[in-house]
């Protein structure tokens, strides 16, 4: 089963990056079979279509708005997000949900789940997470792996652990990990 695990969000807006960190955490700490792709998401927009259309299963890790407490986690099947309709005067912001709508017009679409957490602060310009998100982070990862289990996607936990702190560091100081393949005197 071709599977994409997408971490969506913009890491420079504090808790907005939690989905990106979660996908990266899975990538660093688990070994997946070759048909599983981990995507460092950004917002993607239309590029999401490739995944919705060419994969069988898509798991998106993201932040969500919901009338509930900060830190609450939801696992939303895509059908639930279709037809929400209230698009404020046709201003369709073409993102994750809107791409679902668009792709539902096509013949083939992956089984999509959005695993979302209610963030605390998505306005401060900072690469990092609030304490509330840090506390819920391992739970978010557990929900993601549970969804993979449910879908029959196999993976193995690695012996060495890369911590959340280390992952955030990779985004805060990106050059450190991009050395590979660059000229030695760069």
């Amino acid at each position, binding site marked *: 089963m071709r599977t994409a695990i997408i971490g969506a969000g*913009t*890491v*420079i807006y504090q808790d*907005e990056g939690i989905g990106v960190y979660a996908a990266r955490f899975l990538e660093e700490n688990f070994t997946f079979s070759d048909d599983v792709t981990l995507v*460092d*998401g*950004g*917002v*993607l*927009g*239309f*590029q999401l*279509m490739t995944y919705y*259309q060419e994969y069988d299963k898509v798991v998106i890790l993201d*932040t*969500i*708005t*919901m009338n509930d*407490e900060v*830190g*609450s*986690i*939801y696992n*939303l099947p895509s059908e*639930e*997000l*279709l*037809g*929400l*309709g*209230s*698009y*404020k*005067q046709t*201003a*369709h*912001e*073409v*993102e*994750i*949900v809107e791409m679902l709508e*668009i792709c*539902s*017009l*096509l013949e083939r679409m992956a089984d999509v789940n959005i695993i*979302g957490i209610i963030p605390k602060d998505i*306005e401060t*310009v*900072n*690469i990092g997470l609030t*304490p509330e998100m840090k*506390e*819920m982070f391992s739970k978010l990862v557990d*929900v993601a792996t549970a969804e993979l289990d449910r879908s029959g996607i196999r993976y193995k936990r690695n012996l060495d652990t890369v911590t959340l702190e280390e992952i955030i560091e990779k*985004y805060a100081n990106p*050059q450190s990990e*991009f050395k590979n393949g*660059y*000229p030695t005197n*760069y």
Partner: protein
Amino acid sequence: MSKHIIVDPITRIEGHLRIEAVIDDNNVITDAFASSTMFRGIETILKGRDPRDAGLLAMRICGVCTGTHYQRSIEAVEDAFKVTIPKNARIVRNLIQGALYIHDHVVHFYHLHALDWVDITGALKADPKLAAKEALKWTDTPYGAGEGELRAIQQRVGKFVEQGRLGIFSNAYWGNKNYKLSAEQNLIAVAHYLQALDMQRDMSKMMAIFGGKMPHPQSLIVGGVTCVQDIQNPARIEQYKSLLRKANNFIKNAYLVDVLMAGTVYADEALDGTGSGLKNYMSYGDFKLDDTGFYNATSLFPSGVVLNGDLTKLYPLDQTKITEDVSHAWYEGANDKGLHPFEGVTTPKYTGLETKEDGYAYLKTDEKYSWIKSPLYDDTRMEVGPLARIAVGLASNDANITKYATKFLVKLGKTLGLETAAPASVIFSTVGRTAARAIETELMGDVMMGWVDELAANVAAGDLSTWTEFDFDEVSKDAKGFGMAEAPRGGLGHWVVIKDGKIENYQAVVPSTWNAAPRDYKNRMGAYEAALIGTKVASVEQPLEILRTIHSFDPCIACAVHIVDTKGKELSSFKVNTSCAV
């Protein structure tokens, strides 16, 4: 009595843009205000960083335009370090950006803008047989518009409508009398809307061939590119070419033809200049065609400034004349034309909206009312984007741009029944802005084919160089540079000041800063605002014409938060964690 229309948010793509328009008793827009309601302030994150990191962080500014910010930022640092990249690197960068252009423009026209011109529900009333005939009126080789294909698509869309599954199209202004295409024309456009969904997937693959991992490419570095293996691999080159051939077929036989068709039907609005606005156009220039160094090289899109729609005069671009005025933006600063980006500061000063008697919150338009600053060029307001690039190209008598623009104007003249080509001034309009984008897409698709061959030939001749060496400690002591080039939606500039190996100041002026900016210190309008003045709105409840004009700029106030909004739907049964521990 005048009425106020508020459209918020207006982008079909991420971001938050609000338009307030005032209309008179005849439904004509007499005043307009554009506001971004979301603070960005991304520059602060770059201060104190290693300048070689800037690109990787700058690409996170926007979740959609990642590659463009990445490249601009790297070029700003290269300019500061006085590093000229090798030929292979130059062509690879052109190919990545070129693929972004055609992808962006096709998606913009069909998926973000077409529904302002095309009535989907109208397509259901079409006769597919007549529609296939109609398609042949506009080109001898229509794309995917045979009777059978059109019938199948009509049935598919019909089914969705019956099932109430037109979510993405819900709440559009169907039936508005300012939709002017015939049922058959609507059907052709709807078919291409759906076919473009598949097409854009291929275009997005083209970006990844040399860009590497999408959506966050990693193949560019200060001094060049890292995809040495890819450029030496004939299979990668051939894959790029084959995707480009498919793309060009769609661009020429669907996109350009649909724009010609819509341009003909909506010609009155182009001829009377609806949506023209400022008529001051600026292009930074982009797509270097030789290796004589960054700002010396000839480029596909020339740089320059055109004022008052006068295509007989071209003013050379001088980046020192750019300033950012904050008098109507929610930032600290003097009430004047503002600072050059090298000196720029970004200190928020939010003064909020004002709730009036009707209970609605309005922009305080006499004061500060947007998170976007008002950039000025030589103390003048400017429009940037495809229309500006075409205008500057025509004014500089650029052979390529003149050829592609003329070809379109000649065809338009014919379909309008004129004896000559349509006048170049038709591009100074909302319709023209949309046509300019299609014209440059055709140009781009064609020249890219030549670039791939140029790259392959250069590599075959034994030049494998992809990176120019530099002594970091030496060049980063005290340096200043800018990466100014053309993103698909307009001029994008990154300015960087470097001291002792660290970034001391960083400012990005994005295309939508130019176009979506509020009033300036002299109370002159920004490009969106000016473009709305004088437009007649058919129905106040359905301000279709406002969307049309604003969308024609391809707005992206992105660079922002994109959270999944569940619109208040009851979803508690999908909650995973019980009452949270924090």
